[in-house]
């Protein structure tokens, strides 16, 4: 049999070939849908994490899904050059770097009382002279309650308010803590440390480990903390009876002059875990005082410079890298969804952050 030079159309199986084309297209569409997570609704995605925040805290359009209540601040970082041996980042060269930031409390409700949580947070955005940015979000507790994004999600589910009481079911949270012993160092720390009386006298910790990279390309596992010059004082009974003492206190202190913290960089010893934010490194690790954070001004987060900033802790200048901590990528991915949602809400309703004459939010 000789091959015809022009294949006659009836020689080919048209339905077979159409089916083959269909199979190729379906396989590609299916692969795309799988990667997007559309075929596996039980898989934990960025959207499910943020949905869980919304389920726990209710709808607060235009606000961050976590650490919703806060205040913008600005100032500068005065580097003394001591950390430059560990990291080539411009921020550690001697000199000043402008900083904007945000003090906040955890939780997704922007009207929550300051006493609702024993934790405060400080997020910062350093803009280096070469245009590179360093963004960090720090907490007043040096360890995180959970090790993995999955545990974090389970904790959110356990903290979901009971529709009958409007409050989380203490038994569900207790069961979660019992089932996840990684939470115990965090719980012990909170139990042993009273909350600060002010944003100004709290220490703020990077929680996750990072890697500083020096001029030789050598990596150094580090954590950092902002340690206040203002002496620590625990929250008072009088403050506990007020709803919003933290912002008023900060404003009053800044009226009197700038507030200062020291950036303390702690280097890991070989063998210290860098992938587990629930574990503190032992005492006695080498520490460097890298310079002074000077906070000069505070502004409302309704129109302050921090409002439109996503304090994504993986935005790092050359000279600082993420560690292998699984929470860092998850924070970056989830913050991005929170930011996309709140900016969309702002775009759709320009009056969102304008207070009504009676002081209420629209």
């Amino acid at each position, binding site marked *: 049999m000789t091959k015809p030079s022009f294949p006659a159309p009836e020689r080919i199986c048209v339905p077979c070939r*159409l089916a083959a084309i269909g199979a190729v297209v379906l396989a*590609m569409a299916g692969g795309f849908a799988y*990667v997007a997570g559309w075929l596996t609704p039980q898989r934990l995605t960025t959207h499910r994490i943020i949905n869980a925040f919304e389920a726990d805290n209710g709808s607060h359009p235009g606000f961050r899904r976590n650490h919703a209540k806060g205040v913008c601040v600005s100032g500068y970082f005065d580097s003394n050059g001591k950390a430059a041996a560990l990291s080539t980042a411009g921020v550690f060269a001697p000199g000043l770097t402008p900083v904007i930031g945000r003090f906040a409390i955890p939780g997704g409700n922007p009207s929550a009382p300051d006493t609702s949580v024993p934790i405060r947070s400080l997020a910062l955005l350093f803009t280096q002279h070469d245009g590179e940015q360093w963004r960090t979000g720090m907490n007043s507790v040096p360890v995180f309650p959970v090790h993995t*994004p999955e545990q974090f999600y389970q904790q959110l589910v356990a903290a979901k308010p009971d529709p009958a009481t409007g409050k989380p079911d203490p038994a569900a949270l207790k069961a979660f803590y019992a089932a996840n012993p990684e939470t115990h160092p965090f719980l012990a720390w909170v139990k042993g440390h009273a909350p600060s009386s002010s944003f100004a006298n709290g220490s703020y910790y990077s929680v996750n480990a990072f890697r500083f990279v020096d001029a030789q390309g050598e990596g150094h596992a580090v954590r950092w903390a902002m340690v206040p010059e203002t002496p620590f004082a625990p929250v008072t009974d009088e403050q506990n009876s007020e709803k919003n003492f933290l912002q008023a206190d900060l404003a009053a202190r800044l009226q009197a002059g700038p507030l200062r913290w020291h950036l303390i960089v702690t280097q890991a010893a070989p063998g210290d875990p860098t992938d587990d934010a629930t574990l503190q490194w032992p005492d006695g690790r080498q520490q460097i005082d890298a310079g002074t954070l000077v906070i000069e001004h505070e502004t409302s987060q309704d129109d302050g410079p921090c409002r439109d900033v996503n304090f994504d802790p*993986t935005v790092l200048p050359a000279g600082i890298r993420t560690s292998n901590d699984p929470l860092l*990528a*998850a924070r970056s991915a989830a913050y991005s969804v929170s930011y996309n949602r709140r*900016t969309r809400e*702002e775009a759709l309703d320009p009056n969102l952050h304008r207070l009504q004459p009676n002081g209420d939010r629209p």
Partner: protein
Amino acid sequence: MKPTYAHFSPLQRLLHWTMALLILTMLFVGVGMVATLSHAHDTLIAIHRPLGIAILLLVLLRIGLRLRRGSPPLPNDMPTLQRTVARLSHLVLYALMLAMPLIGWSMLSAEGYPVTMFGGVHLPAIMPHDIRLFALLRALHTYLALLLFVTVLGHLAAALFHGLIRRDGVFSSMARGARRA
């Protein structure tokens, strides 16, 4: 009048197949990185930005080539509707290949986010820091990516239809060069 060729030039074919691979990679990287909470998120983001800029540069070169050399004519026996769909879908593909990287770059600029290529190398912002603009561009980036993926699938199905069923030389005009007699 421009001379007509039965096949795309070797450079056009090289660009087409290279970009086909890059764009498919980009679409899967994009849809994966916004969903995953794993370490892959950081890696995929780090790939997405420089790959997008690479596609932007390649598509500029490709548009120039297409304007200079044109494309092989479609077979005479193709129905008018098919010809119209073919022309329109190629316009959509070119428009999206150009628009997607520019929207991505603009979107990061409007967010005030660094447009990191690699190490300390950044691109400048091409839009002011404005979250309303960001919200619009961010939504566009998603919806146009989905449109691009659907158009790519249609393009693939049509190419296979030409190659396997019509067997009219349209597929081979991009798959190989002219055979010497």
